[in-house]
């Protein structure tokens, strides 16, 4: 039951990532795309952690850890560039 639930939740997260990709591609403005990227970031982190538990290879947790921080810094940089017009 646990294995079925983990695989089903992983598949659901992939499908939800594609649903967020719809908003990223077709968003009317840049801010909508950033909201979509934020949702995609969260889904990819959860998918990485579930894969780490499915494969019993817990070094992927470090990958998820780095991905959280890099996505945060990237999102803040894009938002600062959008708000001020420059990155400084």
């Amino acid at each position, binding site marked *: 039951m646990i294995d079925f639930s983990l695989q089903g939740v992983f598949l659901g997260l992939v499908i939800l990532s594609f649903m967020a990709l719809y908003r990223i591609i077709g968003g009317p403005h840049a801010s*909508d795309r950033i909201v979509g990227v*934020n949702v995609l970031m969260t889904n990819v982190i959860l998918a990485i*952690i579930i894969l780490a538990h499915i494969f019993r290879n817990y070094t992927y947790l*470090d990958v998820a*850890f780095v991905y*959280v921080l890099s996505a945060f810094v990237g999102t803040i940089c894009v938002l600062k560039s*959008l708000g001020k*017009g420059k990155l400084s």
Partner: protein
Amino acid sequence: MKPAVDIIVCFLLWSGLFFIFVGTVGLIRLPDLYTRMHATSKCDTLGTGMILIALMIQIGHYNEVIKLIIICAFIWSINPLVTHVIGSTAYIRGEEYVPNTFFKDCYHDPYPGREELGRGDVNA
């Protein structure tokens, strides 16, 4: 003991997926940037917490549980912060919104830096 833990873990996993699904449907269906933000931020934070707590119960080793707690704390602190910055940036840039939107006190005490930035300086 083991089947009860299994049932709790499965319940947390599927309900977390359900909350993320609701947030993503709101991201696609709602008409406006601010309403989309409202849908995704809360639902994503709650669903992420439930799935991570389920994995913490399921894994059960100290090293991995500590890493998962740190990831959970980062997501719970980063997600509202990014949402706040997205909202304030959209308000500075003057994004369009649905007609009945109500900004409380924004017109009397505007966001700092709104005047010198203006709407004409930033190219869309």
